[in-house]
């Protein structure tokens, strides 16, 4: 296959996975629409409603599989072949893939079926953002990105992002359920507040060391190799640090009287906001970031005497 046909395959696979995610969302919506009518404590394991739920999960599995194909083909389309995370479009593609993958991996272990509709809706929304606003043709990377640290650093950052996102979804639901008095419907059927808090904590407790590894170990090592300085406070680094500190605060909040539960969930969501802002937002905000994947920079206009490569 030629590079162009790999690229076309990737684009088609993105579209196809979008369609399948959409079908999964529909299946989950059918499931939850039916569940609304039943008392919250009635467990449904057979019949159409349960089928719709299982179909939703099955479709999500297929969609994540096709999503993987899209990523792999993207990497194959580049010359030389590389990992498919070299610009914003590719990051978003990879980030949403890991959200989906982690959801499926944790599905059994933490009984996450109830998260299905939200996870799928989240992925679908970001995929649309990626396709509509962020799409770029496959292109060679700037020199600094050709490093095995690209693989290690970005994979760990993206996995942590996936885990934090799942944790954040649980925290949002915690806050909603806390204020809800409904006896039926989606919120009523969620796990109780204690369990939501615990699931959210588990996700964050998994994500935090991974994020620490990405941001405070591999990031500085790579920055040192490429730009000669471990930590330069460039905007991307600043925001990665902010995210780290906010999540450390979250872990504390969960163990501090008066901050448990509600406030901790809010801190977790602040963390998630900083995380996604850094992932997508900062690139549009700041032109001084050395992490400029978006623009084809060779000579950095900001630093004439120390032109970056």
């Amino acid at each position, binding site marked *: 296959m030629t590079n162009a046909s790999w690229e076309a395959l990737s684009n088609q696979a993105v579209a196809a996975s979008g369609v399948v995610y959409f079908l999964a969302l529909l299946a989950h919506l059918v499931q939850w629409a039916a569940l609304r009518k039943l008392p919250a404590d009635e467990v449904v394991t057979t019949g159409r409603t349960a089928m719709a739920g299982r179909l939703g999960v099955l479709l999500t599995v297929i969609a994540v599989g096709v999503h993987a194909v899209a990523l792999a083909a993207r990497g194959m389309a580049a010359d030389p072949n590389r990992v498919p995370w070299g610009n914003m479009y590719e990051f978003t593609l990879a980030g949403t893939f890991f959200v989906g993958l982690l959801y499926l991996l944790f599905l059994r272990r933490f009984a996450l079926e109830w998260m299905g509709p939200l996870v799928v809706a989240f992925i679908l929304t970001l995929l649309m953002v990626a396709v509509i606003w962020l799409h770029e043709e496959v292109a060679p990377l700037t020199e600094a990105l050709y490093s095995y640290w690209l693989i290690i650093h970005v994979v760990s950052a993206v996995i942590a992002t996936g885990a934090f996102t799942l944790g954040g979804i649980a925290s949002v639901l915690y806050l909603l359920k806390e204020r809800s008095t409904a006896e039926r419907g989606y919120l009523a059927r969620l796990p109780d507040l204690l369990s939501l808090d615990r699931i959210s904590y588990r996700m964050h407790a998994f994500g935090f060391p991974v994020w620490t590894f990405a941001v405070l170990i591999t990031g500085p090592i790579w920055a040192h190799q490429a*730009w000669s300085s471990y930590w330069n*406070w460039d905007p991307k680094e600043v925001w990665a640090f902010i995210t780290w500190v906010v999540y450390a*605060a979250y872990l504390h909040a969960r163990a501090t009287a008066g901050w448990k539960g509600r406030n901790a969930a809010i801190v977790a969501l602040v963390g998630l906001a900083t995380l996604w802002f850094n992932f997508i937002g900062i690139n549009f*905000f700041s032109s001084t970031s050395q992490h400029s994947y978006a623009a084809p920079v060779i000579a950095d206009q900001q630093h004439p005497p*120390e*032109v970056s490569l």
Partner: protein
Amino acid sequence: MSNPEPKDTGGRDRQATPMPTDMNARELGRWMWRQVTSMRTALVLLLLLALAAIPGSIVPQEDVDSLGASRWRDAHPKLTPIYEKLGMFSVYDSPWFSAIYILLMISLVGCIVPRTAVYWRALRAKPPGAPRNLSRLPEHATHTTADTPGDVLARAAAELRKRRYRVVVGEDSVSAEKGYLREAGNLVFHLSVLVVLVGFAIGGLYGYKGGVIVIEGKGFSNDLTQYDDFVPGSLFKGEDLEPFSFTVKDFEVDWLTEGPRAGMARKFVSTLEYQETPTSEVKTYDLKVNHPLTIGSTEVFLIGHGYAPVITVRDGNGDVAYSGPTVFLPVDQTFASFGVVKAGFAEPAQIGLEGDFYPTFALGDGLPRSSFGDLINPLLSLSVFTGEVNTGESIYVLDKSDTEQVMKADGKPFRLDMREGDTIELPDGLGSVTFDGIERWNKIQISRTPGKLIALTGVVMALLGLLG
């Protein structure tokens, strides 16, 4: 992973504490210390630290982007003095940012020291014995079996050990306790935050970082006088410079001519010949991005490149007043570059040149510009000045306050537009300028960061602590 149930070991019981108003000095001191080292304070300080870090990503920072900072100052004359006072251009060295993290570190020390002591004592103490009456425990279960008590106890102890409990077998009971590894991990994590900071501080105090532009074919030896810019740590001593030297033998770049990134340069390779000491053997190294050269504990990085047109200026008497490769600094990714020549000893009048170099000259919208970074159609375009050219100032800036621009007969500015090999006579018998050729330069960054292994050990410890 960690045990999901939090235990509030750091936060103290606040209800039991009297208010500060009715305390004597000693009690007040204790009260304050308790506040500072409480988990709630740590939490608030962490959130404050996150908040305080934000401005540095919005306002350009002097250390990160000095040009951006000076542009920002020019654009906001009213805000600048206020921002200046607040330290907005160097947030991460500012007193208020430092205050937050220093408080956090004090709080951290104040909380890990007592926790370590408690931990140490608990580790040496036996797990508490089983209560006589099981139903006093909040979680309990009853089961009757025909096995002998000895068997049951042995099996229970074995099972608990398998699950990594610390087990004490009593006469007719088994008791066990768990969670030590988690608390140890927690302590290690908090301790490692300090280790990382110590590592960074050592790097900042004893290390240095410097940059130098070296023209292809020329050399550098590691001596303070040879650096273009040099930022030492406050405890750095000149004799810490390792006595190496190198020559840039060759420099190659690949220019992409097609595809969505056409115009981008790649695969920079600078071939160095270096000596670790003046007497050691000469070795070669291909210096590339992501592949610094390590000499002893110093590292050498390739961080930039550009063109140095070779320019010769003859004065009114026909003598050579200036000659050599002249570093022009790129202003954008097409490598359109800006540079200056100062012929301070030219007779009868000093000569200053200032202008642009275009590696691939083209006219875009009627303006001269470069359309590509490689040398396809190089052109040098310079304005000429005469008067006091002030050679003492930066070699990249021509101070024009005591000069006069050289004009054509029709009153328009005189401009030298030159191809390689051209010589052009200046008006008024000032002399002539020759564009002899083009060389390349590399920007080399050299740094030494002692303490980096300590910092690395710290972060790795932190990670292990988190996983514990």
